[in-house]
């Protein structure tokens, strides 16, 4: 029994599980995506046609796909920086020696992450109700104009971004806090002796030292935010005027609402390719940054 065989023996169970429950479904979905599997095929498999890349082609011609992609990109481009900003800010505050009740605040800010999206989204839907929501009530009471948060196509996505950022920033905050605590204190001490301002300390010590953490967190957040689904599903059902339909929501509707599993699988693979390209680009840019 040599070492490599022993190693294979040990990882076999994990590989079998991965193959069965991850690889196999992915391959099945890839096969599905080149057929027109739908309601009729469900009734009788003879109604299944091989359509090669037609699902992909038709998808690229659908205005709804492009607008869904646009909404998703909008969500990523606005949401990710906001989320990073909020989590880094919260982490710095909690990490500051002046902060009191740290464990309490850490838990409180992390709480939205572990609660069910569905339950929280229902509550937010009440808060942002146009007529009797607390948010508009508050705006009204200080004399500001009220907003049709979830009913106006221009406001629905910003509302969803706010919700998503609030719900998810706690997760990144915890990671940032670990990163901040790993920065040696004597660096700050040296900087203070040299007369560096708080901002200069942040810019020249905190940010560079956090770079690896920052990279990991942004890649995780970007890939998570590309998979926007739950928020529009619960809060707006993709509306109003499909202004909050994300790519994943489109996939869900194609697949589970209308049973066009062929084109739903095609949506999934297109989203995979896009996410892969974006995260690979991010990695490459960060490597180039290190060389410079």
């Amino acid at each position, binding site marked *: 029994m040599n070492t490599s065989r022993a190693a294979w023996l040990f990882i076999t169970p994990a590989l079998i599980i991965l193959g069965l429950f991850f690889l196999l479904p992915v391959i099945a979905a890839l096969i599905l995506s080149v057929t027109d599997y739908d309601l009729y095929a469900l009734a*009788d498999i003879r109604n299944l046609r091989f359509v090669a890349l037609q699902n992909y082609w038709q998808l690229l011609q659908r205005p709804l796909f492009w607008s869904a992609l646009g909404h998703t990109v909008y969500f990523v481009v606005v949401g990710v920086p906001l989320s990073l900003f909020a989590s880094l800010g919260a982490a710095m505050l909690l990490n500051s020696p002046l902060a009191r009740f740290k464990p309490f605040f850490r838990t409180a800010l992390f709480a939205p992450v572990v609660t069910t999206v569905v339950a929280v989204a229902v509550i937010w839907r009440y808060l942002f109700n146009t*007529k009797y929501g607390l948010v508009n009530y508050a705006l009204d009471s200080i004399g500001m104009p009220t907003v049709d948060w979830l009913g106006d196509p221009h406001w629905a996505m910003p509302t969803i971004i706010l919700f998503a950022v609030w719900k998810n920033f706690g997760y990144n905050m915890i990671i940032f806090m670990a990163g901040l605590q790993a920065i040696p204190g004597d660096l700050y001490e040296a900087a203070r002796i040299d007369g560096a301002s708080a901002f200069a300390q942040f810019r020249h010590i905190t940010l560079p030292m956090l770079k690896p953490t920052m990279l990991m967190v942004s890649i995780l957040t970007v890939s998570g935010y590309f998979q926007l689904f739950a928020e529009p599903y619960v809060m707006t059902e993709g509306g109003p005027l499909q202004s909050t339909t994300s790519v994943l929501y489109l996939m*869900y509707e194609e697949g589970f609402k209308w049973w066009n599993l062929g084109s739903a699988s095609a949506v999934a693979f297109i989203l995979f390719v896009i996410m892969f390209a974006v995260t690979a680009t991010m990695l490459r840019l960060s490597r180039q940054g290190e060389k410079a």
Partner: protein
Amino acid sequence: MSRVTGVLRAVAVLALAGAATAGCAKQEEGTRTLQFWTIGREGEAVEKLLPEFEREHPGLHVSVQQLPLTAAHQKLLTAYAGDSTPDITQLGNTWVPELVALDAIEPLDARVASSKVVEKNDYFPAIWSTNVIDGKVYGVPWYVDTRLLFYRKDLLARVGYDHPPRDWPEWQAMMAKLSQPPGKTYGVLLPTNEFEQLLALSLQQDEPLLRDDGRYGNFRSAGFKKALAFYVSLFKNQQAPMMTNVGVGNPWAAFGQGFYTFYLSGPWNIGEFRKRLPPEQQGDWATTPLPGPNGPGASNAGGSSLVIFRASKHKDDAWALIEFLSRPAIQERFYQILGDMPPRRSSWEAPALRDDDKATAFRDQLERVKPTPPVAEWERIVTEMQLVAAQAAHGDISIDDAAAEIDRRADRLLEKRRWMLDHGHKASP
């Protein structure tokens, strides 16, 4: 951003938490259990009627599972895909063609022919016809649902009318007077995310909505364009608020406050308005059949049917339940519990319905309803229709472009159906 499946599971758990408890009753020896799925509030009402049925059929137990409306369509298809269909289910009558295309439900012609309870000629013809596909009956209408006008008599009297509108021109003249001041008060409420209102207006036209045996959309016809132009003009002239039903929030309170005068809606709102408006306002509102382009107009033949799944092992028991729920006396009680209107004329002889001034308009309308095209893709087509119509209402596209775009989308959705029909595959209907 959690995974789709996790969220769906959470939603399903929340939605079906109640249903699970219903199905856990311990089975006694020798009893047969009938699985009965209902959609929305009908489940609660039917639970009150079932003890009587079980008394009449000893040894038979009916287990009711209530599906939430938003998840029902998906759940039925998933059940079919996973071979876990119930014995009998309530089914929106626009979904019948889809389940027939799947070959999932049982034809009922022989049972209807020999039945002493289900008398075909007693049913409103258009409602019955929604269950007939390729000349075979697949479902028995359970209750009907059509859309007509709820309106505020007092507000109408204030602008000088002592009668409801009889045709579109008169209705438009009324709405023009009622929508003052502009942007504050509106003639009619038409939530932009609901397709039923525009659908009713387009069913009033002579041209069918699909052509060539449901192979192609027919939305570029003069009739549909006329209906769409009328619909869009209401938004353009600020006679209908540009709002989704989410934006409206509470349509009943808004109706009471005079935010709008007309509301194109269905029978369940009789009960809602009785419950939600104060007693002093109860005399101020009424219902009236839908006005057409030139005289009384048609409306949609909506409602739910009862169907038996092919895979059921208790088809005779399921039929017995359908017969029980089709009795005029039972339908009368069903109406009293829930307000769902019966599909047969003899049930309408019940005093509760006959003497109800709010219900008579529906009785009148039911003789003038039209079914939607019986194709499996209909639900999707009509969803797309509304999305494009909402864009037209917003003024983003012209009437002609909207009609062409709806046709384009409908034709794309019907591509598979055309292929099935052209290659002799059974694309029922």
